[in-house]
């Protein structure tokens, strides 16, 4: 190497001028930072795994939800239904029609044209030579199946099931298919409901014309049927009467299965179309032609003229913007939570890499380089965690979709494979990376401000607490609270979310000050606790981050518990859906003939028959009738409310349109179905409709006088409610001018139904009302059994369904709307999550404190401190961090739940505050048990001795 003296001095480059250009220098410095971060992550595997879990788990869960959503969406796509049809193994499934047809690729969109009807010969001729046609079996009508006192309704296919294409529609076969008359294969779920198994004998009886039918059949097998098989069991041909299957023509079977020696290509499909049948072809499903998109009618080589392209719904701009804003708020909250959880890990890392950072500084790294060195850790771990989490979710979803048991929740097998990489995952990955970088942000800032000399010598002078910080924290928190209240009053979730974010930021800014203040009491504590509190105060960054993470979890746990308690209390006192064992019976007041025309129905007879059926199933059952009120004449909708305010059905507790009056917080189901917000009820039925705590006498008296009972706030103005009816012309679809009528009304804010106005026969009889309103053609009945179901006899719903089948009533009955008391679940989940986070944060901080205080512990040991002193200090540190976080979190959670109360209790304003109370069990567990648990864990995992070594000069 040339001696330095032999070389001319290098040209002086002013220090302020980047020698290699700004961009290149920037890139080079980031390159160094990423290299250091990568290798440090590899060396500190334990800490890296922790951050990977904190960041990666939420990414994995959200990615999994998105991917599962893709699957559930895909399960409802035409291709999924096509796969269902082809599940038996047929090369194609053919549905004969009344003439030539046109169809989409998967047969979900069809046109039937004028022309000759198909015959089996013409269909056969259109298929490849050597094809085999197998007709789907004939079906029985719905029959009553009984096994002792257990009874259900069901229909059977009549077939020897010799062909494998038919057998392919049944999975998980146990036993055999019927081999002779007198035998039956049952749907496995039906068999369970009947409490029948292989070897049982069930009795099959008929209704209506088949009333005299009665057979005893031996159950020889059970299996799970493909829903396209249209039956719940199989019997031998001729065993039971046949009903005409729902096909387009009676000349041919409704469905043929095709076994072909060559693929049924789109050309063949078109030939069969011209012969007069729709085709679902395996070859087309697997390899659809590219000249047509799914769900448009497709001809020989392109879409049919005038075929509409797949419509993509365009949300209205205001809704889209609002949803985007709400999504943005949620994303910020998620990032904040992850950053708080992962922050202590990066704080630990900063302390451990202090010497390294000092060397970087001594080698010419300025503050920016030091910040980048720390931030790079956030980038490296964030990318690894997020990409890894998303990839794991993809793999798990792909594996799960092969699992039939898991798929049975929403689909039969045959759901298309996962898309290679949904775009939404990119967003999730980006959020994870940003969150990880955010977690490293504060340590990075601290690193940049550090003194290189102190860093090299291992000195960490106590930084002064900036006075502006607690002021900013308090201010931000109060502003956040105000914004939350405003958001609740405006029923705007975006504003509410912004308030939550600000509130959380306020706590983050305030926490260092809280730590300093609590540290003042350290002097009064025993030695171990004193050391722990003061040391935690000296190292505010790590303590504050950990305490904030715990506080966030505690706030959520306490807040959810308080809110749940309030809504449960409110719902129990008001919501009919929480009355035990109330079922909903859907009345067949709308019936159609074969041409699809509405036929008149004797509604009173149907209602009377339904009540009779229910009483036949349970003589002591209570019933209550709710009939939709519709505009007199042509039905459309009736809205209720004051002025221009409308009350529409909502399915969440949070309304997105501030002009909508809140009228339904917990809507059990949208079972009322229609657009009407007004229902006719009988005063005698009020106890079942409104529930036990409503002012029944007042409501009954009002209805008997023809006064309406309004169940929404702000609906009654000046003692009246305005009902507005609108019509549409059934042929032109044009809307008429709406007409309104004012009805005397009272407000009853207990006993809430999703509907908003109850009227009686007397109300509708008022002349001015009768001109505008009439009784609609839909309705339902609430039914409550006289005693609770028990496992040793058929349920109330099963008995009613059986009686309905016998009476051929055609009504549908829902399962009871009983709400599961989830209080214990909420409690355990909340405490569990908080405890886990407290343990995580507390133990991390404790480990750091022990490492930092190694010299002090050595001194304690040298001056004669007992070994357990070190453990006590560790336990006190962990307990202090967890306790601080839990206290702050519990307080903020209680405040937050009270602010959210109106939103959670039907928007009745703060007048519903009587239902709010402090969830003492949850608070006690969070504030006392969790810190104790954390302290105990620290005690157990801490070594009692530290090797005496030469003290580092400080």
């Amino acid at each position: 190497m040339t001696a330095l003296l032999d070389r001319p001095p290098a040209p002086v480059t002013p220090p302020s001028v980047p020698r290699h250009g700004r961009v290149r220098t920037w890139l080079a410095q980031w390159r160094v930072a990423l290299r250091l971060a990568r290798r440090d992550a590899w060396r500190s595997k334990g800490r890296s795994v922790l951050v990977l879990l904190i960041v990666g788990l939420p990414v994995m869960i959200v990615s999994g939800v998105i991917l599962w959503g893709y699957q559930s969406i895909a399960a409802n796509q035409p291709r999924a239904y096509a796969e269902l049809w082809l599940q038996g193994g047929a090369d194609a499934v053919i549905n004969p029609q009344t003439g030539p047809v046109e169809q989409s690729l998967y047969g979900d969109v069809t046109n039937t044209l004028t022309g000759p009807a198909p015959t089996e010969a013409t269909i056969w001729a259109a298929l490849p030579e050597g094809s085999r046609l197998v007709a789907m079996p004939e079906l029985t009508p719905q029959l009553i199946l009984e096994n002792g006192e257990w009874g259900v309704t069901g229909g059977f296919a009549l077939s020897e099931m010799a062909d494998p294409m038919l057998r392919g529609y049944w999975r998980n076969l146990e036993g055999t298919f019927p081999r002779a008359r007198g035998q039956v294969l049952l749907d496995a779920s039906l068999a369970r409901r009947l409490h029948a198994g292989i070897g049982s004998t069930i009795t099959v009886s008929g209704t209506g014309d088949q009333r005299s039918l009665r057979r005893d059949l031996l159950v020889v097998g059970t299996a799970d049927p493909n829903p396209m098989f249209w039956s719940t069991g199989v019997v031998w041909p001729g065993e039971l009467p046949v009903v005409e299957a729902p096909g387009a023509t009676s000349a041919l079977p409704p469905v043929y299965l095709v076994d072909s020696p060559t693929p049924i290509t789109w050309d063949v499909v078109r030939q069969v179309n011209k012969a007069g049948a729709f085709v679902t072809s395996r070859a087309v499903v697997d390899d659809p032609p590219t000249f047509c998109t799914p769900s448009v009618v497709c001809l020989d080589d392109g879409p049919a003229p005038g075929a509409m392209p797949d419509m993509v719904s365009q949300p209205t701009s205001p809704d889209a913007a609002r949803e985007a804003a709400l999504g943005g708020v949620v994303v910020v909250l998620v990032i904040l939570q992850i950053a708080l959880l992962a922050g202590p890990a990066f704080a630990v890392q900063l302390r451990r890499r202090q010497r390294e950072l000092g060397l970087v500084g001594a080698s010419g790294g300025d503050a920016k380089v030091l910040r980048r060195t720390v931030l790079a850790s956030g980038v490296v771990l964030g990318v690894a965690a997020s990409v890894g989490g998303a990839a794991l979710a993809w793999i798990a979803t792909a594996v799960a979709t092969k699992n039939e048991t898991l798929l049975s929740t929403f689909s039969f097998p045959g759901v298309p494979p996962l898309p290679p990489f949904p775009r939404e995952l990119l967003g999730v990955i980006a959020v994870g990376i940003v969150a990880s970088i955010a977690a490293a942000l504060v340590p990075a800032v601290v690193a940049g401000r550090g003194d290189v000399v102190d860093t090299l010598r291992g000195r960490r002078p106590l930084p002064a607490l900036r006075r502006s910080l607690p002021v900013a924290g308090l201010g931000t928190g109060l502003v956040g609270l105000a914004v939350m209240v405003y958001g609740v009053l405006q029923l705007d979730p975006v504003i509410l979310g912004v308030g939550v974010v600000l509130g959380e930021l306020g706590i983050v800014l305030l926490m260092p000050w809280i730590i300093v203040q609590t540290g003042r009491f350290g002097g009064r504590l025993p030695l171990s606790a004193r050391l722990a509190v003061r040391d935690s105060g000296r190292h505010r960054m790590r303590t504050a981050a950990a305490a904030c993470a715990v506080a966030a979890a505690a706030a959520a746990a306490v807040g959810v518990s308080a809110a749940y308690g309030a809504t449960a209390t409110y719902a129990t006192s008001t919501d009919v859906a929480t009355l035990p064992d109330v079922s909903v019976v859907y009345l067949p007041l709308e019936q159609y003939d074969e041409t699809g025309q509405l036929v008149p129905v004797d509604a009173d007879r149907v209602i009377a028959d339904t009540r009779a059926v229910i009483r036949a199933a349970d003589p002591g059952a209570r019933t209550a009738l709710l009939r939709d009120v519709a505009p007199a004449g042509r039905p459309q909708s009736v809205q209720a409310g004051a002025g221009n305010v409308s009350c529409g059905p909502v399915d969440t507790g949070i309304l997105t349109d501030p002009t909508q009056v809140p009228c339904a917080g917990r809507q059990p189901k949208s079972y009322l179905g229609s657009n009407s917000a007004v229902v006719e009820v009988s005063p005698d039925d009020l106890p079942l409709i409104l529930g036990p705590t409503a002012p029944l006498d007042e409501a009954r008296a009002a209805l008997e006088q023809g006064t309406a009972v309004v169940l929404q706030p702000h609906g009654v103005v000046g003692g009246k409610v305005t009902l507005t009816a609108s019509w549409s012309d059934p042929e032109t679809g044009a809307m008429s001018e709406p007409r309104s009528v004012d009805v005397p009304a009272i407000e009853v804010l207990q006993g809430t139904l999703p509907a908003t106005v109850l009227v009686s026969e007397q109300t509708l009889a008022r002349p001015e009302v009768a001109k505008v309103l009439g009784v609609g053609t839909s309705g339902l009945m609430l039914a409550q059994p006289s005693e609770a179901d028990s496992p040793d006899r058929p349920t109330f719903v099963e008995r009613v369904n059986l009686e309905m089948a016998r009476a051929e009533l055609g009504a549908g009955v829902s399962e009871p709307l009983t709400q599961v008391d989830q209080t214990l679940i909420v409690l355990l989940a909340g405490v569990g999550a908080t405890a886990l986070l407290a343990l995580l944060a507390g133990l991390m901080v404790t480990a750091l404190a022990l490492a930092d205080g190694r010299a002090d512990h050595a001194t304690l040991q040298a001056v004669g401190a007992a070994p357990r002193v070190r453990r006590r200090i560790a336990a006190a540190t962990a307990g202090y961090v967890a306790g601080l976080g839990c206290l702050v979190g519990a307080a903020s959670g209680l405040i937050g739940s009270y602010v959210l109360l109106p939103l959670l209790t039907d928007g009745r304003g703060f007048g519903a505050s009587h239902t709010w109370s402090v969830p003492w069990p949850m608070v006690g567990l969070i504030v006392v048990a969790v810190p104790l648990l954390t302290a105990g864990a620290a005690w157990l995992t801490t070594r009692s001795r530290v090797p005496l070594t030469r003290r580092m000069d400080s």
Partner: protein
Amino acid sequence: MTEMQTAPVLELRDVTRIHGSGVTAVHALRGVSLSVCAGELVAVMGPSGSGKSTLLNVAGGLDSVTTGAVLVEGVDLATLSASDLAAVRRRAAGYVFQDLNLIPTLTAAENVALPLELDGGSVRESRRRAVESLAAVGVEELAARYPDEMSGGQQQRVAIARALVGDRRLVLADEPTGALDSETGEAVLRLLRRRVDEGAAGVLVTHESRHAAWADRVVFLRDGTVVDSTSYSVDADAAGALS
């Protein structure tokens, strides 16, 4: 002793450094003046708390002065921002510490190349120059090793290579042999001496006179003040024999 360049590489002019204020003020340096030229090795000695390390810190811009001026290659450090001071450390001055000199997650070559890369140099060019610098200190074969795969002496050699990589002409060594055995320490000092003889300027903080014997001049500090300054005329081998 090689002929020294006339323009000092490092110059301290009446430098005072006070830590804190009021009753807790600590005068780490009081009116210290010192100049070091290329080809000159200056040892700084003194008892604990005499300001030796502070002198080294202000020399490389790691610490600022209260009064006075520090010039490196003619540039007054007081006129520079924090970023510019970092640039001085990348381009002009290199540090060697007593121990824990190297970043454990970087190889020897990467440690040496660090100042060059932080200055925007390409990976290839920086590595090439780093290997050159390692070769100059006789540890080229350690280029791909990590610090925990080297002995203490080897690590110090690498640290010296880093201190002088590229165009740096000023090495600031703070007790570089403190964590080494005597034989290894001698080897490190011999290396440092050679680099200075090749044209670098060096400041060596030590509290052992046998190590100071390697220097051209010894400056004695007490309570932040230069109390004595002695020139040596004994050559390096003789200095080694004395130890």
